[in-house]
Structures are given as C-alpha cells and as structure tokens.
C-alpha cells in the first residue's frame, strides 16, 4: 500500500483522482495530518509563530496557514501510522521543504523532486515559482535561491479564486525558462489555465509526484 499524507484534512478528491490516473493498480490511502482535529485545535496550531507558513485545506472547505516547524512532528506521526498500517512507501502531498523523514520506508517528497527536475530542465536557472500565499513569498525565494536558481515569485492559492490572472501576468512579463507550480493543491486545471494565460511551460507538483510515484511503483512490479 502507498501511504499519502496531506498536510490538511481529508477528503481530497483532487489528489485521489491524480493518483488513480497515474498510479493505476496500486492500492493507496490518503490521510490528513490534521484529520480529527477540532477547529479550535487547528486555530491553536495556526497561531504558532514562525517564518515558513504552509497553506492547507480543511474538511469544511476553509483554509489554514500553519508553520512547517509546527506541522513536522504531526506529519511524521501520520506517516508512522500509515507504515504501521502496512504502507511500503509514503508520498508527502506538500511541496514544503521538510527535513528528512525517518519512518523506515521510502518517502517521496515533492520538495526534493521539484528543484531536481526543474534544475535538469531549466539550465539557465531562471525559473518562475508560484507559491500559494503571500506570507510564503520570501522564504520560498530564499529556498530556491539557495538551490542555485534565480526565481521570479508570484502568488496564487489553489483554494481562492481570482489570483491566477495576476500570477500569470507576472510570469508572462518575466518569461522564465520554466514555471514551477510550487504547491500540491495546484492541479491540472489550474496548470492548463496558468499555461494559457502566461504562455510559459509549467511543471506541476501534483501530477509530477503522482507520475514519479507511478514510475517507482512500476519498477517494483
């Protein structure tokens, strides 16, 4: 079984659809790091200070922004629970740059995949990075710069309408070699719209992770 961990709450029909399409014939289970928590508990987590907030969807359709540092142990425990339930590999459904997870099975992390694949394609290092929230802009810029890129950063949440046009306009003007949709929630519909509006070739974390999981699962068959 492939265990998938979203940093918010289930259900996530968008993630289910992506993995059904690209990892056919493999049993997978999606669990949310915040599943079972009450709104009050989530508010407490959101109030923890830090400089690397992550944007997540809750079961009621609202969103929360919680620091990576706060989420890290909760995400790890969610992974360990999946491993106890028989997961032979884990996929993290978040592009945040978490420290290495030691959970006894391989962990696929989009935060590692995206810069590696982007660097293999965009040899000039001129990438566009679309991040979901304004408060993530500076840390995301620092991270991509420390990976050796010259990023142009724009903001577009997958969970709030009306931000994609402005983000696409930024990229249409900057004309990076490649745009990275650096948030798991930005799916193929968002990608198609973004590509149409910006004219830029685009790498999408959500479908890339599902396809790579399919490759790895295929290699184990």
């Amino acid at each position: 079984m492939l265990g998938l961990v979203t940093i918010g709450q289930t259900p996530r029909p968008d993630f289910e659809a992506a993995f059904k399409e690209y990892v056919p014939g493999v049993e997978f289970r999606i669990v949310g790091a915040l599943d079972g928590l009450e709104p009050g508990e989530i508010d407490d987590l959101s109030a923890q200070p830090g400089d690397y907030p992550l944007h997540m969807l809750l079961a009621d359709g609202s969103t929360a922004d919680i620091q990576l540092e706060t989420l890290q142990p909760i995400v790890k425990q969610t992974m360990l629970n999946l491993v106890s339930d028989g997961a032979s590999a884990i996929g993290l459904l978040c592009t945040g740059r978490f420290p290495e997870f030691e959970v006894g099975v391989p962990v696929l992390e989009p935060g590692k995949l995206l810069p590696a694949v982007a660097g293999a394609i965009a040899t000039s290092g001129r990438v566009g990075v679309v991040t979901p929230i304004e408060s993530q802009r500076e840390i995301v810029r620092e991270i991509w710069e420390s990976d050796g890129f010259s990023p142009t950063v724009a903001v577009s949440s997958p969970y709030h309408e009306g931000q994609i046009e402005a983000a696409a306009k930024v990229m249409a003007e900057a004309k990076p070699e490649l745009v990275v949709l650096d948030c798991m929630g930005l799916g193929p519909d968002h990608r198609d719209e973004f590509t149409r509006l910006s004219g830029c070739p685009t790498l999408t974390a959500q479908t890339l992770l599902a396809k790579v999981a399919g490759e790895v699962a295929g290699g184990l068959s």
Partner: protein
Amino acid sequence: MLGLVTIGQAPRPDFDAAFREHLPSTEIKLLGALDGMSVHQVDDLAGIPGTYPLHTLLSDGSTRDIDISVLAPLVEKKARALVDDGARAVAICCAGGFPDISCGVPVLRPGRLLPALAGAVCRTRRIGVVSPIASQMAPAQEKWEKDGFSVKTAFASPYRHDEITAAAEEMADPELEVVILDCMGHGAEYRDQFSQLSGRPALLAQTLLAKVAAEIVGG
C-alpha cells in the same frame, strides 16, 4: 507540438507509443540524428574514435555505436529543426550526458532528468546503472559518480534480448537501492522483466522522459 530526437534513425514506433500514451492529443514529431544517411556514411561516423560511445538503432534494424562527441552536433541540429517547425518542447531520446542545447524551448534530456530523479527518490545514493553496451560502462560510471552516486554497472542492449539475464544477476544486490535502466531503448516491459529477475526496483529513462515531457507540454 512535442519534438523528439533519437540518436539513430526514424521510425521508432516504440518511442511513438511511449509518448503517445501520456500525450493522447498532442502532435508528436520524431527526427533521427542519422536520418537520410547511408549505411556507409553511418559506418564512417562509427569509425571516429572517442571515449563515450552511444548505442543507436538504424532504420534497417541494425545497430551502430557512435561517440557522443560525434552525435551531439547532429542531435542539436535536429532539435533546432523541430523548434523551427513549431515544437514547444524537445525531448532527446538518449540517456547520454549531452551538453546543454539552448534553443528557446525546454529541452528534456534523460541524462539530466534521471540523476535528478534518482537523487530525489534514493537516500543512500547507492545505485545500479545498466548501460546498453559494455564499452559505455566506464563513461557511464564516471558520469553518475560526478552526480554524487555510488555506482555498480552492468550492460544489456535493448536490441538483443539475450543479455538481460546476466545484467539482472549482476544487479541482484540488496545494497543497491535502485537500478537505473540508463538507455532510452529499454521499454516498460523490459523494465518489469528486469525488476522481476533482479529483485531490485528499477527506474526507466523511456517512461520517465515521456511523463515529464507530457507535464511540460501540458497533458
């Protein structure tokens, strides 16, 4: 349109099928670096000495081994022709370590994508690398070590089916976290068979390149 460049000659129905699966409605155009050349001309190229031979399939079904330094300018020329023809991205259908090709659209090279992906999925960085020909094992080892991996090599041509068993035996080493089938000619069936024979998870250049290309041209 997605442009594909193979280092040998067209047609490559195996490549067409691999990319078509992930891009059902996008135009795909494949050019061979050696298209239009006579066997005699190709033999002349194969006679040029070098240190990094690549294994190519010709349209008559035979194979030649030609050095990357000879093939690189021919590949670049075909990539540019595809861009002039309207390609929105070009995928190089060879896992060799080709130099950068700057032609205004994304150029996807498995020689860069495979180590990027292997580094992201493999924590120990202890890998097996299967080259198509024995004479490529040394330059392949050097290339992967430069990318920071600890490498064990073997060889098995995708165009001769009698080499898979010995290569799989070489790679049946539990210390290897993953085995890279480091040649575009190896397809998904080959991968499945190799994985079964060796007992090791295998990463495949062909399907990986097709999937990433589909990401980039939107599919």
